[in-house]
């Protein structure tokens, strides 16, 4: 959590003494030209009246509020509520909004369902497009060139590196997220979970299974010893 430290007082002062300023926590990281550049741009734009410090802090709150737990809730709801699943597959943005998750920047959410016949996976070969409102920020490997370069051309080899080996009868559908759509994968609900509650099911759903590089296993909860 990195909301900028608030000044401990509000008197006029010079900048030659030692106390925290907004965005300048002294012990948080070593000198970085780029961190200073970010602060410089932000302060200049705030001084110019183009943005406010408040909306920047608010955006940090929004970033902090997003995580794969949201996507897992969507998946568990779809597994347990056939009507919701139908709406989710028809219009991912609208169905997510039912759960209080809103898309941004003109992007729309498309949800692809994994079945016995088709396994879906997502990559952004050009940069790092990712369904942030439902999954938070992408993992490093999703942004790095190895995954981006290889996922489109040798998806089965990439899946194998994630421990996911699928028979040839299961078609692999790779989705290159290159423009205005964002993709969430609805994993296959594992066998042996028929008695589980929606929350127990959500606890099984991993970030990687919603990117489509792994499958959801019924044993995850047992291994972690939670909600069973």
């Amino acid at each position, binding site marked *: 959590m990195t909301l900028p430290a608030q000044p401990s007082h509000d008197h006029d002062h010079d900048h030659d003494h030692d106390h925290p300023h907004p965005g300048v926590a002294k012990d948080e990281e070593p000198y970085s030209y*780029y961190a200073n*550049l*970010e602060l410089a741009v*932000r302060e200049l734009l705030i001084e110019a009246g183009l943005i406010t410090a408040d909306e920047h802090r608010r955006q940090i709150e929004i970033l902090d509020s997003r995580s794969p737990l949201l996507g897992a809730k969507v998946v568990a709801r779809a597994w347990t509520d056939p009507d919701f699943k139908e709406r989710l597959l028809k219009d991912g943005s609208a169905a997510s909004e039912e759960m209080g998750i809103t898309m941004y920047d003109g992007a729309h959410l498309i949800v692809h369902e994994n079945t016995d016949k088709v396994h879906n996976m997502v990559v952004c070969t050009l940069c790092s497009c990712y369904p942030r409102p439902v999954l938070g920020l992408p993992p490093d490997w999703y942004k790095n*060139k190895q995954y981006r370069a*290889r996922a489109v051309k040798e998806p089965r080899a990439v899946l194998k590196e994630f421990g996911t080996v699928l028979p040839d009868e299961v078609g692999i559908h790779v989705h290159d997220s290159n423009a205005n759509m964002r993709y969430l994968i609805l994993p296959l609900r594992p066998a042996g979970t028929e008695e589980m509650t929606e929350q127990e099911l959500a606890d099984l759903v991993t970030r990687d299974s919603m990117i489509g590089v792994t499958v959801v296993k019924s044993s995850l909860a047992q291994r972690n010893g939670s909600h069973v």
Partner: protein
Amino acid sequence: MSSTESLITHLPNDIGGRDADAINMEEHPMLPWEKRCHALLDVLATHQIVNTEEKRRGVEGLGSEIIGKLTYYERWIVSAVNVLLEKRILTPDQIANKTKEIAERKL
């Protein structure tokens, strides 16, 4: 195609289908300044001061050497600066003075 043509027409980020090493699944926690940088670019996109596509284009325009040496969010902030200068929202001297002031403030 001339030997340099693809440097102009093939963007350095357009790597789908290239051969590459095994995937490194190590993840590093986001640094505080990286989160502030991400939030700043989100705010700039919301106001269309630097839209998402401009930010991407700015990263691509850094060229493959800089792209290879800078980290993800280092590329973002340099891209944003270049776009803001290009759009005459900020000036080079403003950046110079403000980064100097911040460096002194942090001493």
